[in-house]
């Protein structure tokens, strides 16, 4: 099977994109957590069993 051989430049660019994506996803997790706390807060524990 033919495989695409990446150049050093392309590997470097891919690494940069991957790191950026990881940072964005991590920040989103933190943001959505913060929004949940702000909008719902301790009330999230107050639910019928």
């Amino acid at each position: 099977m033919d495989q695409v051989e990446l150049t050093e430049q392309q590997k470097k660019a891919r690494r940069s994109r991957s790191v950026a994506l990881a940072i964005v996803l991590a920040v989103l997790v933190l943001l959505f957590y913060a929004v949940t706390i702000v909008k719902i807060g301790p009330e999230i524990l107050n639910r019928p069993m």
Partner: protein
Amino acid sequence: MTMTNDHEALAAPAMMEGDARDFFALLKPRVMSLVVFTAFIGMLLAPGEIHPVLGFIAILAIAVGAGASGALNMWYDADIDILMSRTAKRPIPAGKITREATLAFGLVLSVFSVAVLGVTINWLSAGLLAFTIFFYAVVYTMWLKRSTPHNIVIGGAAGAFPPMIGWACVTNSISIESIVLFSIIFLWTPAHFWALALFKSGDYGRAGVPMLPNVSGERTTKNQIVLYAVLTAISGVVPALMGFAGIVYGGVAAALGAAFIWYSFKTWQMPDGDEKMIPAKKLFAYSLVYLFAIFMALAVDNLAARYLGAVI
């Protein structure tokens, strides 16, 4: 070089060489900074409160939405961007990122930013953001830009929406005050872009974009610049006249507006066919200062009124 060859030159390479910075460049960071600034001021001026975390997320969503419309603009305009000195180094014409990837990037960020704003803040502001993206990417980029010399007059609405969205994030409404904030940017846009178009008319001509100087000539453009500078200066003092900004703001806005008219008048005096176009370049630079200063003055006035207890 024909259009067909331009498109061939933009054909997708097997693997992109664009890194994270190139993707960030697709968001037009300088435009985004102005969007963040004006949306924040809209939020600050609006009556009511918003939790700082929610305010931060709202600004982020508005910024990403604006960036997404920038990416969609670069996707559609790649064929003419390669022809203009100002835009030739953008990621697509530079061969860093493919058009397909740019389209996907722009669409995903558009949907995501609108959804986040709707779920976390309110659906009125999300709807306004969606309309802004649609207006910039479809109405301005795909339709007006290549078909009429009044492209940036109508298209300017896209850049004028952010303070209105910021306002709607806090109040869940559109009010006369937010329409005034909208109109300041809306009326400011033509003088700002036509000053640029005067000294970049060769670029726009090469790309076949019908900017006013190329279609109607320098004299008409200069007349229109003065007209819009006067309208901008008037709209700048309206917040003080309507009472949602103080008298000190009114004085500052009048002075800033008078300077805007002065720079536009100097451009109007510039002889036709001037090679260096120094007055037009000065007007372009001052127009950026004007918009920043007028919104900053609104913010300072509002904070002073809030914390000193009375409108100064």
